[in-house]
């Protein structure tokens, strides 16, 4: 028998090596793939959880982030949601808006914008509710949500009451989506649980612990129909949404059954996920079980947190990827076709083992290195207080929850492997990360990252990954609606290859992403044709385009505008 280990040492050895140190990926690059530019560009936001030591669940569930062009100047600004239980001795922390300047730096414009929502913040949804060309902002809270209308002059007005919005519970991810095709963006708001702050929970070892969602009653989500006059009507009951209660956290909108009507996929924590299929008659039918997207491969519920919809295997069908608790995998549901549904292929696509030790929240699928396929970024942080990982970047007791992030590279066939040391700037920080929004923040043709940490700094990562191909950015605009056509499905034809992407803002966890569609094209030097299915189901074909540029497709014109 060999010498025996001692417990204290072994407890650390029990964890897997950090993913970015993994040698499975490409050879180490001389260049870091990402650079944390937060300090350099003036992003100084630090999330305050409001933790008081009572282990209240809302303290660790927040930190949504958004990328939005609130001032219409063509570049992306940042919105960071703050937490904080309101206590009597000091004012609550407020959300922050940072405007991007021409030189790429950011200025905190919260005070002048009026977007400093003081609620106990969770997430954010962005959309132009009145088709005036200016994006409006919906903030989800533990407590009443708030809707802010963009006046078009850099300021916002709280119109929650005037709009008839009354969502008082614990809201998490939200999405603006025109489910009834009337041209106005409706609003879906996931509801977590009926939280009771007086409940106390313990770990299996009998230590005080954060309660899990099953301790509290589940709550149905909320669907608000936009009346087109600046007001909303709660249609949760009429549409069937109120008929199912769960602990909703993540949402993504996509026409999964390819009938031209947008459907809704909800990641539920410890409950079966929902796949609300649009009935095209104003209602929805929940079909996740028979379409294979409710449970994992074993038929078990998982702790759904964040979700992304993307064509992960280049077969032009939009797949799903849902992040989960540790000791569950993050789950890759492959779309097998509109009549067949989904299959959990996590193990066979290489996405099982690496995610097991971590609790995933924010998630994004984009072509990190422009080689022509969608890669994955998952940001992590625990919900249970376990032994701290070595090298945690946060102070006790938050180190008990801190975890590194994950970056996976797609080999072009839908198989993934850890990215190796290239993205270490993103992976190495061991923090309590929740929100993740992606977009071309510096307008250089690749996708950058904004992450939100609980009780820690937001981080802005510039993508410096060595480029393995070309790219095209597409902004689909419906001039009748005066805004980006959220939900437009865009197909690029490049020789034999077809690339399918959808314009969306709601994705990831509590976050809002860049709605411009980004295509990594690999070696393709020209796009031969562009097909668009607009959100109302109309198909339109546009001519091809040169690559390595941002173009605009304006509905009804058939022309590609540089």
């Amino acid at each position: 028998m060999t010498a025996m280990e001692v417990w204290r040492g072994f407890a650390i050895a029990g964890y897997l090596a950090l993913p970015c140190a993994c040698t499975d990926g490409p050879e180490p690059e001389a260049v870091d793939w990402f650079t944390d530019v937060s300090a350099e560009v003036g992003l100084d936001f630090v999330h305050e959880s409001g933790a008081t030591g009572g282990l209240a669940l809302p303290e660790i569930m927040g930190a949504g982030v958004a990328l939005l062009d609130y001032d219409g100047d063509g570049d992306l600004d940042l919105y960071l949601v703050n937490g904080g239980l309101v206590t009597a001795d000091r004012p609550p922390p407020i959300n922050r808006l940072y405007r991007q300047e021409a030189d790429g730096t950011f200025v905190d414009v919260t005070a002048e914008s009026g977007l400093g929502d003081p609620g106990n913040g969770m997430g954010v949804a962005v959309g132009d509710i009145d088709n005036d060309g200016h994006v409006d902002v919906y903030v989800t809270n533990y407590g009443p949500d708030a809707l802010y209308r963009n006046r078009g002059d850099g300021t916002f007005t709280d119109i929650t009451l005037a709009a008839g919005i009354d969502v008082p519970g614990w809201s998490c991810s939200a999405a603006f989506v025109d489910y009834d095709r009337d041209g106005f963006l409706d609003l879906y708001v996931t509801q977590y649980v009926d939280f009771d702050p007086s409940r106390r929970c313990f770990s299996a070892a009998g230590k005080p612990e954060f309660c899990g969602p099953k301790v509290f009653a589940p709550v149905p989500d909320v669907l608000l129909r936009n009346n087109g006059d600046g007001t909303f009507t709660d249609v949760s009951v009429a549409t069937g949404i109120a008929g199912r209660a769960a602990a909703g956290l993540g949402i993504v909108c996509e026409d999964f059954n390819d009938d031209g009507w947008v459907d809704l996929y909800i990641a539920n924590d410890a409950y079966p996920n929902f796949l609300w299929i649009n009935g095209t008659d104003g209602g929805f039918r929940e079909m996740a079980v028979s379409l294979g997207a409710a449970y994992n491969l074993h038929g078990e519920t998982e702790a759904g947190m964040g979700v992304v919809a993307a064509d992960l295997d280049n077969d032009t069908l939009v797949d799903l990827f849902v992040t989960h608790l540790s000791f569950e995998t993050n789950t890759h549901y492959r779309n097998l076709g509109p009549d067949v549904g989904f299959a959990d292929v996590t193990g066979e696509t290489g996405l099982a083992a690496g995610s097991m030790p971590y609790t995933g929240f924010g998630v994004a699928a984009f072509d990190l290195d422009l080689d022509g396929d969608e890669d994955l970024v998952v940001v992590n942080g625990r919900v249970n207080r376990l032994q701290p990982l070595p090298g945690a970047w946060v102070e006790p007791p938050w180190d008990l929850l801190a975890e590194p992030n994950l970056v996976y590279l797609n080999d072009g066939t839908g198989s993934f492997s850890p990215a190796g040391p290239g993205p270490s700037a993103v992976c190495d920080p061991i923090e309590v990360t929740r929100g993740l929004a992606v977009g071309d923040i510096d307008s250089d043709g690749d996708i950058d990252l904004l992450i939100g940490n609980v009780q820690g700094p937001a981080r802005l990562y510039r993508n410096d990954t060595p480029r393995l191909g070309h790219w095209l950015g597409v902004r689909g605009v419906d001039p009748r609606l005066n805004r980006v056509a959220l939900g437009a499905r865009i197909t690029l034809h490049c020789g034999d290859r077809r690339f399918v992407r959808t314009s969306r803002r709601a994705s990831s966890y509590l976050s809002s992403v860049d709605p411009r569609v980004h295509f990594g094209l690999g070696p393709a030097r020209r796009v031969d044709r562009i097909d668009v299915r607009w959100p109302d189901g109309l198909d339109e074909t546009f001519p091809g385009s040169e690559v390595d540029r941002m173009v605009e497709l304006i509905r009804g014109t058939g022309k590609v505008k540089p």
Partner: protein
Amino acid sequence: MTRRVRRILAVAASVVVVAALARMFHRPQQVPEIIDLPDTTAMQPRVAARLRETHRLVTQHPASAEAWGRLGEVCHAHQLYAEAASCYRHARSLAPERHRWPYLLARVRQKQAAPWEEVDALFADAAGLRPDYAPTYVRQGRLRLGNGRAREAAAAFEQALAVEPALAVAHRGLGQALLAMDEPARAVAHLREAARFAPEDRATWAVLSQAYRRSGDRDAAVSAAERSRGLVRTSTIADPIGAEVKAMGVSPQHYADRGVALIRAGDFAGAIENLRIVAETQPDDPRVQMYLGTSYAAIGRPQLAMHHLAQATRLQEKLVEAHVRLATLLLERDELKRDELNRAIDHLARALVHAPEDTTVLAWLGSALHRRGDVDEALVIFARAAAAAPEQAGPRYNLATALMNHGDLDAAVREYRHALRLDPRHVDAHYNVALALERLGRIDEAIAHYEQAAKLDPTHPAADALGTLRRQRR
């Protein structure tokens, strides 16, 4: 040197040689070093005491595989996985012939997110030591399936079925593996077997739904999905070793889990024993109070039951189930007093605030109001129940009966017939509608319904009523 001295030296030398050879060929078993007690700061006292107690055993018997294994199991039960793995390794080294230690080591290494190949090898080792223990194969199959090795997973599930042909979880696993191998027809066959052996398993019906859809049978897929939706639990592996590990747990959560499991098994006295331990440390947990109330009611201690249920509703106003149980206990009393009836109605009304569409709440509330003489209110509630569950005959039947008692016979007949369209085998609905029709003088129709009721249940009073009515006609 004398001969005697030489002999002594020779003997001594041979002893040394023999001893050296013995040492070479027979290594004494190395005793594991005693390890630190896990950090028990802030732990529940029972958990800390259990850890200390089993740790002491190891200190006293460091060469005992059982002592190490026992400590490993206590750590395992309390999710101290790193410590458990360490102990199981020691136990395995000291007793390499035992299946239990590699099996449990595999399970905790899984919890530590160890590479799946390592865990798979541990399960294989365990299976080699005890080939007749089906849970080993089932867990190995699930591990392989989750890591994209469907074919190897299928082989493991088949081994489990060779040991236990009626093992539902193995049929389910094999069906899942076959589905992953894109063999939906074979998957359907095994999943149907799983459903036959465990008809209440939610996961089986969920996967069966996918298998049907992949086979092109959309109707069956929808129907299986609906079946799955109506079920609350997924079958777990019946694993005696795992159960023994769980039994080592002494945290409040363990006692609470045990209490709930015993309620499900119908052992309410055992449930109370466990739940009272939880209530010692968590007196403000409304669910524990509710489960205690439920258990006391089941063993015929209504006063104690009501006390705990009232506690539960005080601690969590939204606990619908506790309101309903308390109300039903009151309503079931032999000599119900007016204030008790009022109290029951109050609890049901409070439950209704939080579950406005709940047909059970509506049915009890309607019935209680009717009993108090608030017939109009009862009718409104029964109508709400019928609207909330348009596919169920029960609420429609209640509404009809309330209408009949109210004297509105035409409306009652209409509602009974509605109930019978939903459930043509509802004997009482046939009987009651016959009574109403008889009172309305529609004798032929009444006879037809009495006949139906008597045919469905020959012992039902409908048979006598039918005889009487026929005699009267003659």
